[in-house]
């Protein structure tokens, strides 16, 4: 009999601790499949972040370094620079990456570090009990936005995949979801594509995966999944925002025209 479906070897055979309806497990599996496909497990170093995803090492059968909150891209930078032959990925939540870790993600991306970042966006701080995140939807009630996120006071959700696509060092940036079989198949494809960029040494690749948090959202798993396909994808559109295979660098801005004799200093410098 031919076996047509099995657990990826990069994933451990352990029971999950994630809540019912949480999509971390699905995303873990897709990442592990990509690891298997490229045969990188034995040279993979994962960087775990702070949040529900910290238990990366409990699920992935790879070496893992645990980073302080938000700092995974900096830790991954150190790992990759010291061991350029390793395959390095971070796995971070939205509080970790889009709030406390904004400096680290933007600069690792801008330097074009040859790493892959898996960013799981569930619009809340899951582990700490469902507080407002930078990705929380306007109007969404959380334990620290009990009246709903107010655009005037709290700003609007950050679209990280689009934001990072602007940076020169980023080779690939895409947003995926795993709420329907079709989206899941596409997510699998995009994650593999992101991995391919690193395997081929072509620079920084970024996957934003929309995910559920039924526990923090206070809804059933089915309702949570429906929310992904509704307001979340409406605001966080799926797709590729950068794919350097198709991306052409912008021409540099024209050099300022030199005007002979027009050399001048700012006014305050003439006061002395």
């Amino acid at each position, binding site marked *: 009999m031919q076996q047509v479906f099995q657990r990826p070897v990069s994933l451990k055979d352990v029971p999950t601790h994630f809540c019912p309806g949480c999509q971390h497990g699905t995303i873990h599996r897709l990442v592990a499949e990509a690891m298997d496909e490229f045969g990188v497990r034995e040279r993979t170093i994962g960087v775990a972040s702070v949040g529900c995803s910290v238990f990366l*090492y409990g699920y992935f059968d790879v070496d893992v370094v645990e980073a*302080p909150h938000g700092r995974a891209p*900096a*830790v991954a930078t*150190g790992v990759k620079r010291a061991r350029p032959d*390793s395959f390095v990925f971070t796995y971070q939540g939205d509080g970790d990456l889009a709030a406390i870790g904004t400096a680290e993600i933007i*600069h690792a991306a801008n330097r074009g570090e040859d790493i892959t970042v898996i960013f799981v966006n569930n619009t809340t701080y899951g582990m700490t009990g469902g507080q407002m995140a930078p990705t929380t939807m306007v109007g969404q009630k959380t334990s620290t936005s009990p009246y709903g996120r107010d655009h005037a006071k709290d700003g609007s959700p950050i679209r990280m995949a689009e934001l990072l696509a602007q940076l020169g060092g980023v080779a690939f940036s895409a947003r995926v979801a795993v709420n329907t079989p079709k989206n899941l198949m596409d997510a699998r494809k995009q994650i593999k594509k992101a991995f391919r960029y690193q395997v081929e040494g072509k620079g920084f690749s970024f996957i934003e995966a929309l995910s559920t948090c039924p526990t923090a959202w206070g809804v059933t798993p089915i309702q949570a999944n429906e929310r992904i396909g509704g307001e979340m994808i409406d605001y966080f559109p799926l797709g590729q925002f950068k794919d350097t295979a198709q991306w052409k660098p912008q021409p540099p801005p024209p050099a300022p025209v030199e005007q002979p004799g027009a050399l001048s200093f700012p006014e305050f410098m003439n006061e002395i």
Partner: protein
Amino acid sequence: MSQRLFVKGNEAVAMAAIEAGCRYYFGYPITPQSDIPEYLSRELPKLNGEFIQAESEVGAINMLLGASATGVRAMTSSSSPGISLKQEGISYMAGSELPGVIVNISRSGPGLGGIDASQADYWQSVKGGGHGGYHIIVLAPASVQEMYDLTMLAFDLADIYRTPVMVLADSVVGQMKEALVPNPRPETTLPEKDWVVRGRKEGTEQKIVKSLFLGDGELEAHNWKLHGKYDVMREKECRQELFMTEDAQLIVTAFGSVARIAKTAILTAREAGMKVGLLRPITLFPFPTQAYRDVTGQCKKILDIELNNGQMVEDVRLSVARDAEVHFYGRPPGAGSLPVPEELFEQIKKYY
């Protein structure tokens, strides 16, 4: 090696790091330590190393954490406000038992303070500057030669104890030029780094570098393990300089730059027939407690001099014999406020 060079203390740090086999440096500009990243940004690429000017001190210490987890020798440097930012990462490195060298060419504070030489980071350095109750080894050079030698030692101690090690100096030692004999890296037996992450090869165990311990009793055991290491350091790694202490009636104690000034004042006192000596701690953690206990067996007067409002003096008081008097003279930093030898000689006369 008999070669003698005329270099800055900061350059000596960078040279020692390279000689110690450090090929990875992560930093962020801040006065008065920028000679270190400038030197290494020039030299490391020639050695196939990596220099990264990080987005912040937070970024730099975490790059150090990542590089160190793979088993390489790596370093960062900064000055006081930047070291404050690194404390999060230092705590994680201490908790994860990661080696790494952190150089602090300290400046004055609190807050933005100024760039004058200061020893106000003593507490932050030796008491565990971040959260969670840990120590790191702290070495306090007083000369350009020691900047070199102690940086070299820092890498070995970091590997031996799997701990961050700080070299704590100030702009006097960092910016001063002196003769330096760039000694070759000493032969040291170092433990095998069998804990590093390099990718789990088939048939090997998964390696995890972490500081999160949630299992029943795990974290308590981990804390006792760390503190067991600190006890070993206290027993084996205390270093100090004793200068003219045998017959001393008063012993000056000071570390780093101000100890140099104190030494001149002590020589003046000796010329005046006063029996004065110097006890200069070289390791600030572990603090050379036994040396204080020993010297205060016969000498009952200690004068502690620091470029701050009194920090190390607390450890001195805890270390001396019960019947010894401990006096303090502090010069917190301000423009041009370094004490001159005559000023310290006045203090010696006051308490002699």
